[in-house]
């Protein structure tokens, strides 16, 4: 049976590659930096340019489709996931890395229909690694199949996470108390690439066992969630329930046992949901 979304996915891969080339070129040049949210949450002209490129191209080919894009939302668009085919876009995941030339920067394109994620594309453009996942058809990096780690013992695991862009002291206390508890399990180590999408692709690739973070947005993990799942991994909320794309939180792991063990150590908190305005 023909895949109704194959065409859309092929288009997403081509667009991610085109956008990624733009991003990679911009790393060599002057990048304009505007401040967003706090002095540590950055956005550049390239973020906006890339998102515009993707949305315009998709809208032309699929005029009935909807969009949730990081920069569009920042400009005032609603962040609402309906049943319509919806493209969930982070034009530059890892903007701080991008500004510095630190080599983990990804173009992320997720696609959902009837509120179910159908495919995800994450192009780690400085490394030239194209990660893809299609529901029911597996996950790949540059054409090679991805498979999560088969580790079941948390004390033999590497965990990825980030410190986030909020400097609110109460939030930071929770981030650090969680981190200390995870380290004391003990785990083999902690890694942080500076991009949620790339951290999750490392779970899919089997090189880390788990990733957790609170404070990310739906566009940061919609695409990589499909990639983790199709590589055999599991996704859940930081309090153990099912993953909720609008909740600003995720745990991605190679297996249920590791995910649940991480969840036990997390000092959970709830940032404002991505769909909060819609619920008012």
């Amino acid at each position, binding site marked *: 049976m023909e895949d109704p979304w194959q065409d859309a996915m092929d288009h997403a891969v081509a667009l991610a590659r085109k956008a990624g080339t733009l991003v990679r070129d911009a790393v060599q040049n002057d990048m304009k930096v505007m401040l967003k949210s706090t002095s540590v949450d950055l956005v550049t002209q390239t973020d906006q340019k890339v998102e515009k490129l993707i949305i315009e191209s998709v809208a032309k080919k699929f005029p009935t489709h909807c969009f949730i894009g990081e920069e569009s939302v920042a400009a005032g668009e609603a962040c609402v996931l309906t049943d319509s085919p919806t493209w969930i876009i982070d034009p530059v995941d890892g903007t701080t890395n991008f500004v510095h030339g630190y080599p983990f920067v990804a173009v992320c394109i997720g696609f959902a229909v009837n509120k179910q994620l159908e495919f995800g594309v994450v192009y780690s453009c400085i490394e030239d690694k194209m990660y893809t996942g299609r529901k029911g058809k597996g996950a790949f990096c540059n054409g090679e199949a991805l498979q999560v780690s088969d580790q079941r013992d948390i004390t033999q695991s590497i965990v990825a996470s980030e410190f986030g862009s909020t400097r609110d002291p109460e939030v*930071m206390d929770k981030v650090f108390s969680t981190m200390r508890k995870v380290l004391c399990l003990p785990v*083999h180590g902690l890694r942080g690439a500076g991009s949620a999408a790339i951290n999750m692709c490392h779970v899919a690739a089997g090189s880390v066992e788990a990733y957790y973070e609170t404070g990310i947005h739906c566009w940061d993990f919609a695409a990589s969630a499909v990639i983790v799942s199709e590589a055999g991994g599991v996704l859940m909320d930081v309090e153990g329930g099912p993953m909720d794309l609008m909740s600003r939180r995720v745990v991605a792991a190679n297996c249920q046992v590791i995910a649940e063990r991480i969840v036990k150590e997390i000092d959970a908190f709830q940032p404002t949901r991505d769909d909060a305005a819609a619920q008012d």
Partner: protein
Amino acid sequence: MAEWTECMNFGISVAKQASQVVLDAFKKDKEVMLKSSPADLVTETDQRVEKILISAIKEKYPTHKFIGEESVAAGDRVELTKAPTWIIDPIDGTVNFVHRFPFVAISIAFAVNQQTEFGIVYSLVEDKMYCAQKGKGAFLNGVPLLTSGQEDVNQCLVVTEIGAERDDLALYTMTSNIMRLLKLPVHGVRAVGTAAVDMCLIATGGADVYYHIGMHCWDIAASAIIVQEAGGVVIDTDGSEFDMMSRKVIAASSLPVAKRIAEVVQAFPCRRDDVDPSMCICGASSC
């Protein structure tokens, strides 16, 4: 000196040859042994690669001396004399190697009269050969490297590691250092899992400062000269002159940034690499 250039080129070629052993083993399952803690790992590949490097270098330079991580683990003393000395970490990022996390480096430094003359860091999964010879600049796959030059700590991207210690004091010190830095604020904190590659990222300009407590001389001797030759500075975490045996380092884009980081970062006690391992950390012969 021209003769050290020849040594460096030889070092680069043996690093490349030895990397094949690591790459062959990379995709396979490994038998893992523990060293000082449940997060301080070693494999048979670490030991094999060090033997290959040392025997190749000894054959060409029979009078030269060696400080190698696995030789020291097997009982050799760490002693940097005036003699030409190769300081070797056969696999920096052993945890990464075990997990197939693709940042693993062979690190080779060379010192004469206790001064580092050149450094080689081969990030072998990425096929990135970083090198620097004193007074001749730093290079990545032949392309010159330059640090970011950043002088404002609030615009800095910081790279560090939690390290292998899991005791309360070390963990508390390492995590509270990160919290204080984030609050300065800095742009962010990153971790790739190998001191050598972390420091080379400073040399590329892709990040602005690296600091660590608890690593060993073989982890940073090579990358320290790479950072310096790329225009960066390397000092101790207490703000004093860099001492590769002290188990503490800050490598930064500029002196103002390095000094600012030194004001914030606290160290936990570590036995120096060049001290008799039977001595207590505090320096007494027994506690």
